C-alpha cells in the first residue's frame, strides 16, 4: 500500500558504532524517537534539512549516511 522509498541509510550502524542511543540522537536532531526509528527503517524519508542534521550529528557527509541506487 505504501510505496517504499529507494533511499536507504546507515544510521543504525553508525549509531551502534558511536554508541549513541535512539533517544540521544533523536534529542540532538530535534525529533521524537519514533520518527528516528521510522527513518532508520526506511518508513519515513527525512527532509533535506533533517538529513543534514543527522549527518552533522555523526560528523559525516550526507552521501556517507544516505544511499540512492544507481540506475
Amino acid at each position, binding site marked *: *500500500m*505504501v*510505496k*517504499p*522509498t529507494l533511499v536507504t541509510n546507515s544510521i543504525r550502524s553508525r549509531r551502534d558504532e558511536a554508541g549513541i542511543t535512539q533517544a540521544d540522537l533523536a534529542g540532538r536532531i*530535534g*525529533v*521524537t*524517537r*519514533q*520518527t528516528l526509528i*521510522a527513518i532508520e*527503517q*526506511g*518508513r*519515513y*524519508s527525512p*527532509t533535506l534539512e*533533517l538529513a543534514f542534521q543527522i549527518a552533522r550529528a555523526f560528523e559525516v557527509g550526507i552521501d556517507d549516511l544516505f544511499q540512492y541506487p544507481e540506475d
Partner: protein
Amino acid sequence: MVYTERNTWSTLIATAVIIPGYIIVVLQQAAGGPLTSVDWFPIMLWAIGISIAATIILSILWGIFAGLRDPKGATATDIRDRDIDRMGARVEHAFLVIAGLGVIALCAVGADVFWIANAMFLGFAISSFVGSIARIIAYRRGLV
C-alpha cells in the same frame, strides 16, 4: 506512541462510536416511519457535542497515562507529525468535496432538509474517520 498519533486514535475511536450511535438513534426515533419526520437537529447537535467531548477526554486521559510513562515525550511533536497531518488533511478534503457535491445535488433535486443536513453531517464524520485511518496507516506503515 507519539502525541499526535494518540490524538488521531482518540478521534478515530470517538467517530467510530458516534456515527453508528447517531444512525441508531435516528432510526429508533423514526420507529419504522419516514426518516424525514424525525426531529434530527437536537440528535445531531448531541452527536457533535459528545464526539468533541469524547475526543478531548480520551486524549487527556491517554495523555496522562503516557505522561506517567514518558514525561518528556508525552506531548512532543515533530516534522513527521506535521507531514502525516497534512497528508491526512488532504484525504479529508477529498471526502468533504464529495459530501459538498452531494449536498448540491440534493438541493438541486429539492430533497428534504433532513437528507441535505445529514449528507453534510455524514460527510464531515466520514472524512474525519477516513482521514484518521490514513494518518494511522502512515504512522504504522510509513510515509515516504
